[in-house]
């Protein structure tokens, strides 16, 4: 039965996970991820989801446990946030290197100190180089849809890499919105049970996983991850087409393009505030500004071709980061800049909204207008600014 229900982002994760029939779940609670793992624990205890739920004593162990379960062939799930994600960081690398199709929800949250439970993308982006596919949703519906597609993408033989699905703390995780569910039959058809492949722990066909690789071999393992990541770009598109058939919903693969075709300035960002940015774009367009948006849905594999295709020839690109790589710029800004090398597109970066500071359509208006003003004044320099820093409190 296809229902439309009102769900928080976290419950959208939980209901999607349930439909995907994972067999082992291991998780450790952290605000604001908790209601995901509480809901899944309830599904398991009520017998609505036939799975083993391991209530581990840390996030490091959560990832280790799903690595173990995945290595013997089970479909698995975990979820975390912020400090939890950083604490499991070592194991995050381990999962990708072992080519295990683990799915993890990451409720993006700022990093200590000082304590902050509000949204910020630094935790997710700190996993950038781990070999995981990294997706980021805009709204609760997309959270639901991404989780279901995530299993298909991760388990695809051309990929066999883990995937994390990001959703912003509170603005999605704890905000209820209508979500179109899918029926169990639909999902079962879209996502069959995980296929066994030859690199599993099996007493009938014993292998050693992860033993020492001398310099003669190590590099090839890394190269194979890179190749799988490159193949994933196409796989993500294909699977989204298939998902469209059962759901009637698609978003555009690695990126979502919003009013880009006639635009002269492109806003690039990811996550829940993209919704506010769209509102801002609509308002500015009424005033005659031809601004469009490229929303990053996948940070890895990175949509370099899509960015070049949309941005080359535009007057300017504005990248808004909810994160910072200290000593350089926003992570997304750096990635976009490197994708647009040897072009003469002006790239303006804003660092904004760290630690959950509100960024409203009015703020996006201000950011975008400032770039237009600069262009008009002949300032085409690429640069990065911190938006809304309060000089008076420092």
């Amino acid at each position, binding site marked *: 039965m296809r229902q439309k229900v009102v769900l928080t982002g976290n419950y959208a994760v939980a209901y999607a996970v349930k439909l995907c029939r994972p*067999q082992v779940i291991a998780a450790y609670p952290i605000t604001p991820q908790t209601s995901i793992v509480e809901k899944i624990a309830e599904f398991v205890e009520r017998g609505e989801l036939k799975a083993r739920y391991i209530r581990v004593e*840390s996030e490091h162990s959560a990832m280790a446990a799903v690595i173990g379960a995945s*290595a013997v062939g089970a479909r698995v799930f975990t979820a975390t946030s912020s400090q939890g994600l950083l604490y499991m960081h070592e194991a995050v690398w381990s999962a990708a290197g072992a080519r295990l199709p683990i799915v993890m929800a990451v409720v993006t949250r700022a990093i200590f100190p000082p304590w902050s439970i509000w949204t910020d993308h630094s935790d997710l982006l700190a996993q950038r180089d781990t070999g995981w596919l990294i997706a980021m949703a805009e709204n609760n519906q997309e959270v639901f849809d991404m989780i279901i597609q995530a299993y298909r993408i991760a388990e695809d033989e051309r990929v066999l890499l883990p995937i994390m699905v990001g959703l912003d703390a509170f603005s999605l995780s704890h905000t209820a919105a209508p979500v179109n569910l899918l029926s169990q039959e639909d999902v079962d058809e879209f996502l069959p049970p995980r296929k066994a492949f030859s690199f599993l722990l099996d007493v009938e066909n014993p292998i*050693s996983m*992860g033993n020492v690789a001398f310099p003669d071999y190590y590099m090839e393992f890394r190269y194979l991850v890179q190749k799988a990541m490159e193949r994933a770009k196409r796989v993500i598109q294909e699977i989204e087409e298939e998902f469209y058939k059962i759901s009637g919903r698609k978003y555009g693969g690695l990126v979502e393009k919003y009013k880009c075709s006639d635009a002269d300035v492109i806003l690039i960002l990811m996550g829940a505030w993209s919704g506010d940015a769209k509102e801002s774009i609509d308002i500015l367009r009424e005033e005659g500004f031809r601004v469009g948006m490229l929303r990053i849905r996948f940070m890895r594999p990175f949509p370099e071709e899509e960015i070049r295709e949309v941005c080359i020839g535009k007057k300017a690109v504005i990248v808004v980061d909810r994160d910072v790589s200290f000593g350089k710029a926003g992570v997304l800004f750096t990635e976009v800049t490197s994708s647009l090398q040897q072009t003469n597109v002006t790239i303006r970066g804003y660092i904004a909204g760290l630690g959950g500071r509100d960024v409203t359509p009015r703020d996006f208006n201000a950011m975008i207008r400032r770039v237009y003003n600069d262009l008009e004044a002949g300032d085409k320099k690429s640069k990065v600014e911190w938006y809304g820093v309060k000089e008076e409190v420092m």
Partner: protein
Amino acid sequence: MSVTVKSLPREEYLLPGNASCPGCPSALGLRLLGKALGKNVILVVPASCTSIIQGPYPKTAVKFPLINVIFASSAATASGIAAALEILGKSDIHVVCWSGDGGTVDIGLQALSGAAERGDNILYICYDNEAYMNTGIQRSGSTPYGAWTTTTVLGKRRHKKNLPMIMMAHNIPYVATASIGYPLDFIRKIKKAVKYKGLKYIHLLAPCPVGWRFPPSKTVEVGRLAVLTGMWPLYEIEKGKFRLTGISRTLLDKSKRRPIIEYIKVQGRFSHLTEEDIRVLEEYVDSLWEDIKKMLS
């Protein structure tokens, strides 16, 4: 449960030509594990000497399916494997952690404690060579008082962490100590442990010729002296019931124990010990046995 050499299978699960040092107690222990359990084992190995012993990719000397895991994660990885096997209907397979003392009493303790408290179905074996041997003999929480290591060049000033007792406090069904000097006792304990569901813990004393500074031909002898001098009592705690095993049953009376100097003098790591140091170790051994008496009564 009687185990004799003749009753052991001929099948080997650690192949010869592996990368262990001469006289390696971990390699010997792994062989014995295979003799005890046969092929239905999935082995979890954290960073340790066993990461090396199995040999480099693309070969392996271990005939069990084996997963190498990050240092602190062996028990948690095993929890995941055990849960998956259960739901996949493969409950006849033993999940065995084969971890060194660093991976057990230090960096791996949190994961081990969690798995024990949850009652996850794992056999956890700590092969205790009493220091970080794979990185070149650095002190661990399991290094005994007085021992030289490269990070305690004047000798360690604290006693060894008593991990079997910490595991006992988790109310798990089976805890045992073993020594590589008494292989049949070790095998018997493995076989007994796997009859229980839940986390089973065996702490295997594994004298390391390289790190303890004794000739590689003496591994078994040093393993026996540890027991005969009372430094390493052999016991098992089955469902909370404590009992001594093997030769240790005869050692409650201090006069039956060999002087600890016999154990100390064969190891270069203790060569600098003063009489005072030796007295500290003697007192430690006496207190171990006093605790055992209390547990027996």
